[in-house]
């Protein structure tokens, strides 16, 4: 085994895993507050990637600078989607119905993206996308390092929002128990709408990094969503810290298995860990027991 490849695998895993964690955080936030399994999260990531691509190609806006436009845009798209489709979803079937509704939304967005951008694969380009720098004998691609830093900033921002603000307390209360939160005067409906917006807004930076590190078209979303769902189930549905840890853990493990053993088993290892963890802790690493019961 080549030690250089091993080091690379760990570095790749941590750097890439943090971006997946960022994308998965939006998904788990939406589930935690609203009991909605948003299978459209993958296509929203691709929508974020296409928005960054369009800003870069047509207006020459750097993808990172473009986030100042794409994050608010996707936030308001999220708000609009929540208000249009999820306000009326109630009752015990809400979670199951949410899968159908979000799947329908993903199909509409996929079809629209195919019409606008065609199915030809594209990739976001910038000076740092293919460049790297050497540190301690290891090549660090700029895009992954920038992506890691951005994910750290975004997740820290989310942490501050959740744990250092009054609105964050409302979200956490809703995450813990929606009925109790409503009883103490929290407008759970408003919190839900904003959380959905935040969850979708987080796909903008995730999508930008994904689009700069992969060629993509609208159909790429199918590969993404299975991975994102695995991450949040492993971390614990509704657990933000769980999504972060599971994202980094899963991708690093996958990369290490690929290098140490064989790439054939790398994807399998991703799901094998999920099965093992769930057999011991059905609620995931950091999930609430009630999340499974519900």
């Amino acid at each position, binding site marked *: 085994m080549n030690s250089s490849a091993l080091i690379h695998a760990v570095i790749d895993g941590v750097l890439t895993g943090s971006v997946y964690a960022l994308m998965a955080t939006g998904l788990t936030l939406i589930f935690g507050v609203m009991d909605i399994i948003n299978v459209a999260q993958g296509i929203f990531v691709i929508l974020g990637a296409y928005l960054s691509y369009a800003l870069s190609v047509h207006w020459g806006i750097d993808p990172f600078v473009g986030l100042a436009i794409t994050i608010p845009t996707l936030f308001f798209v999220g708000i609009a989607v929540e208000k249009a489709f999820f306000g009326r979803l109630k009752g015990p079937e809400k979670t199951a119905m949410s899968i159908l509704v979000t799947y329908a939304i993903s199909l509409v967005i996929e079809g629209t993206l195919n019409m606008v951008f065609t199915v030809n694969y594209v990739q976001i380009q910038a000076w740092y996308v293919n460049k790297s720098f050497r540190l301690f004998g290891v090549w660090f691609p700029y895009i992954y390092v920038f992506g890691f830093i951005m994910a750290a900033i975004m997740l820290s921002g989310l942490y501050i929002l959740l744990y250092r603000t009054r609105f964050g307390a409302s979200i956490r209360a809703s995450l813990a128990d929606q009925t109790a939160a409503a009883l103490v005067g929290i407008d759970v409906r408003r919190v839900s709408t904003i959380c959905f917006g935040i969850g979708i807004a987080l796909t903008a930076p995730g999508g930008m990094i994904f689009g700069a590190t992969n060629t993509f078209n609208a159909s790429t979303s199918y590969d993404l969503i299975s991975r994102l769902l695995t991450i949040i189930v492993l971390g614990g549905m509704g657990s933000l810290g769980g999504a972060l840890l599971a994202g980094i853990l899963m991708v690093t493990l996958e990369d290490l298995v690929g290098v140490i053993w064989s790439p054939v088993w*790398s994807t399998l290892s991703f799901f094998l860990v999920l099965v093992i963890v769930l057999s011991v802790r059905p609620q995931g690493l950091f999930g609430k027991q009630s999340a499974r019961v519900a």
Partner: protein
Amino acid sequence: MKRKGKLFRAFGATSVAAVTAITMAATTTSGAASNGTIAKGAPVTIGISLSLSGDFSADGLAYQQGYKLWAADVNRAGGLLGHPVKLDIVSDASSPTQVVTNYQKLISTDHVNLTFGPFSTLLTLPAAQTVNRYGYAMIEGAGGGPSVFQAGLKNVFDVTLPVAYDLQPFAKWLTSLPASTRPKTISYVTSNDPFTQPVVQQAQKLIGKSLKTVYNNVFPAEATDFTSIADAVAAAKAQVVVLGSVDVPTVSAFMQAFEQAHYTPKAFIATAGPDQGAAFIKAVGAKNADGMMVPNSWYGQSKNPQSMKMVAEYVKQYGGTAAGVNADIAEAYAVGQVMAQAVTATKGFDNAKIIKYLHSGKTLNSVQGSVKFNSLGMNTAQTAYTFQWQGAKFVEVNPVGDPGAVKILFPKPAWGN
């Protein structure tokens, strides 16, 4: 007892209804497959399942363009035996299970007269097995993996060169280089796809010990993140890389990771991806494409008169340049051409007669060149070529000495230069 009697009556009625329905369906479908007659002036309907979404969507859409281009040409010339051609295209979302459902529906519900193949070996095998049950011929252009031919089907005909031969010219060129210039090391990395693995395995056999293998691995077809695999290949620092890829994203991911690792192999060939013309250039950039190689049996600047006509029509309709025309277009177009010749020769749309005719050993022609099927449905009349991107042009470089071949760009220029 009364309840039992009711149950028996209900069971009996259901059984009779089911048997009647099955018999009617069987009569209808076998009629569609073997009758071969169509009312005067009525269209001949061709059923096709294509990957209009999912992993193969870029290829699926290109195939759709190729089939439609052919149908438009045939209809302009008066149709097939005077019947206008109507394409019944449904999407399989790149799913091997959906493709089965689609062909069942096309034959038993839509009653199509003929069928054309889907995209990829992965989907062609279940599709061919399905239409075989109804007695239909399946002419296709993208199911050249050994698994399709090993299935023992008599109804499948691949108009393209079998993929196992794809890397022959490249292997021959590599091993024939003088020892002083011949690369010393090679890496093989492939998706475990039924199309790519046989190609790479065949290349390994042909190259043998002429070059030292420093990396040899298979990655799952469903992989989406290639960074660590590509980094491992880069760390092995082989002078030649053979990549078994099915699409542009896979090749692009390896190219990006190699550039980030400051690793440029002297020769880099991928089984698919660089053949997608403008779509490949758009994804990776013209400068990065320089020196990238891909095996194929057709290219946009081919001097074949039929091909030149098709390319001109394509460029007129969709824009772009001859070099940017996706090879999938030609494969799909060739499928239509071969079917047209079989229909003309058999003077009808009887699938049994079409199958018999295509097995007769007759040499047919297409935009991709000659077509002659062996008993397994492989096209034995075509030649494998290696193509390379040189300064934003897609040119033939192998077999060495072929009239259309230009000098190979070797060693490959550094990324982005």
